[in-house]
């Protein structure tokens, strides 16, 4: 069977689901952040495969921008986590409940 668009999209969906599972299941802020990266990568894979099978390069330009924005987002997010750790001595979401009703 020839590998086509739907094969790549299936991999992308499954990888996105894995990332979502990590965000829901894990309680460590850093691992949650890594799962977010997995979800972003899944979206990138879908965009690149759509771009390839529709013969348009615009999808790949979008992926280029997504990678740039993800790098900026990771640097700011990790700086926030470090600042939080300095104040509270924890990177565990169950210890961060001051906004809970």
């Amino acid at each position, binding site marked *: 069977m020839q590998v086509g668009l739907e094969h790549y*999209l299936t991999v992308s969906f499954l990888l996105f*689901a894995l990332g979502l599972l990590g965000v829901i299941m894990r309680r460590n802020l850093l*691992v949650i952040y890594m799962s977010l*990266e997995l979800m972003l990568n899944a979206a990138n894979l879908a965009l690149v495969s759509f771009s390839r099978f529709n013969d348009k390069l615009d999808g790949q330009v979008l992926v280029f921008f997504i990678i740039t924005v993800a790098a900026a987002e990771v640097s700011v997010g990790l700086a926030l986590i470090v600042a939080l750790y300095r104040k509270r001595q924890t990177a565990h979401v169950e210890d961060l409940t001051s906004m809970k009703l």
Partner: protein
Amino acid sequence: MEAINNLLGGTAVPDVLFYVFAALTLLCGALVVANPFSRSPVTSAMFLVLTIISMAGLFVLLHAFFLAAVQIIVYAGAVIVLFLFVIMLLDLKEEARRKIKFFGIVGGLVSVGAIVVISLKALKSSNPGANLPAPQLEGGTNALGQLLFTQYILPFEVVSVLLLVAMVGVILLSKKDLK
């Protein structure tokens, strides 16, 4: 690039490689999220590197050579190193010993499983790749650069401003007396 094209021009080699890289991507992705042997964030980061490298392999199979290189340089080179630095800064030995809540596992698996079933059914019924011609597109540096510096020049400049803002923000956030 010519060598890779010749390498991929064989009959069923790309298909076999697709299955290899897809299995590697999903396996390492699963080990990032739930590793049965170690809950340490360092192992998660290492498996994230493997996921990203095998995903760069998938990009090469999709003839997106430039993006495969950018993926490895930016993600495996910069983002993961940043993660490892932060893991080194924070002392997370106590964190690794905490249990994952049973409710979190069950709720997560049920909701994510439902989402996977829905999206795969939608993919099957819409079947977007059914009557597309054989792909011709090559995502080399030349073609991508031409598009980036003509049609997408404004977003390109805006992204550079965004990177500057992120840099200023990170420096401000890392100051010792953060108010």
